[in-house]
């Protein structure tokens, strides 16, 4: 049995760890609220943009726009959104698993990484990181999303990559986050979920022409999708961390209870032993 002093030392160390995890939990709760509000604020913009794109696509007949067609390249660009800090449960490893599990050959993939943990995880698996924008995820700006969009779209237009994907964590609610891999380009109309369009009777005019409008709108759409993914990922990260820290705090509590039980037993045992020794001693003298 461990000595009383060892148990005490252990108890102190677990208690201080628990204080840290408790504080981290509180911090991520606050950050989660902020990130959630931010994700909410982006919704009206995104929904309107999405509706417009869908209505343009459904009303245009000739679909030979480069963003809608395969450009023949077999390389794939994957934008991977993870966090810069760990201690968030399975948050980062789930994303890495999602990318690895997509069935792409390692050689054919260009990774555009946002988040240091994703860079580390994917480099170890042998993926090629072509761009690292890890700073952006600390406090994602709309401009960051646009910058990345510009980069990937440029390599798409040059024919370097034929498909663009995005891996991020979808924020369902505070306790459920889901790693997701979605295809951004080429945009396929069949993959867009149908929108119920109340303005079907209205014949929309485009100025400039629908084709040119698509040229401008699709990058905006992707940029916004990316921005939406940033803010959702941020909310997910904090949600995941909150949960991880919550269970760490509970575990620490159990350990402390366990240790104090052991400590008391050890204390009792040592008292009993001392008593036995004294009694045995005094009996030996009186005999």
């Amino acid at each position, binding site marked *: 049995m461990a000595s009383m002093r060892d148990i005490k030392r252990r108890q102190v160390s677990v208690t201080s760890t628990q204080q840290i995890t408790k504080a981290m939990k509180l911090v991520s709760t606050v950050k989660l609220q902020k990130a959630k509000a*931010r994700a909410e*604020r*982006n919704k*009206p*913009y995104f929904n*309107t*943009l999405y509706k*417009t794109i869908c209505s*343009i696509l459904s009303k245009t007949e000739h679909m030979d726009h480069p963003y809608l067609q395969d450009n023949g390249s077999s390389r794939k660009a994957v934008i991977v959104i993870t966090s810069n800090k760990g201690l968030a449960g399975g948050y980062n490893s789930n994303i890495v698993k999602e990318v690895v599990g997509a069935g792409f050959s390692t050689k054919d993939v260009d990774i555009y990484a946002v988040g240091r943990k994703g860079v580390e995880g994917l480099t170890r698996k042998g993926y090629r990181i072509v761009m690292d924008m890890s700073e952006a995820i600390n406090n994602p700006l*709309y401009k960051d999303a*646009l910058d990345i969009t510009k980069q990937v779209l440029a390599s798409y237009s040059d024919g370097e990559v034929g498909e663009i994907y995005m891996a991020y964590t979808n924020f369902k609610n505070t306790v459920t986050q889901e790693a997701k891999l979605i295809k951004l380009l080429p945009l396929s109309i069949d993959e867009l979920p149908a929108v119920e369009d109340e*303005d079907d009777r*209205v*014949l*929309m*005019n*485009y*100025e*400039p022409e629908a084709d040119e*409008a698509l040229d*401008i*709108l699709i990058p*905006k759409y992707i940029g*916004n999708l990316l*921005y939406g993914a940033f803010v959702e990922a941020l909310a997910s990260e904090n949600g995941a961390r909150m949960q991880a820290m919550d269970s760490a705090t509970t575990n620490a509590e159990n350990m402390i209870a366990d240790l104090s039980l052991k400590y008391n037993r050890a204390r009792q045992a040592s008292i009993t032993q001392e008593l036995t020794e004294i009694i045995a001693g005094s009996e030996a003298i009186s005999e």
Partner: protein
Amino acid sequence: MAEKTFRLKIIAPERIFFEDDVTFVEFRTTEGDIGIYPEHIALTSIVSPGIIKIHTPSGEIKEAALLDGFSEILADQVTILAEAVEWPEEIDVHRAKEAQIRAERRIKAEEGDMDRAELALKRAIVRQTLAK
């Protein structure tokens, strides 16, 4: 008789910039300046950097710098999705001035993306005009 109005929504990525009933709105698109009264024909157009003038039913005219985005115009509603839109008091004149100088240098040196530099220059000038 009350003047006819329509709903104007200006939505930015991080906030709803403006949402109210208005009588008239004027802004710049890639095809030129347009003014919109109620019952306008359905039209989707791309925004070019310029000043947007919003006429409220009380006769007040609100101005803002509308720098990038696109608009969807319907008979009773106009939605402008603006990537960058600012009220005059939000504009940082010094920054705009610097951006103007940078853009002018780029244009003079003819380096990089000329269209981008030109857009940046336009934005900087619009911001400064409105802030004054």
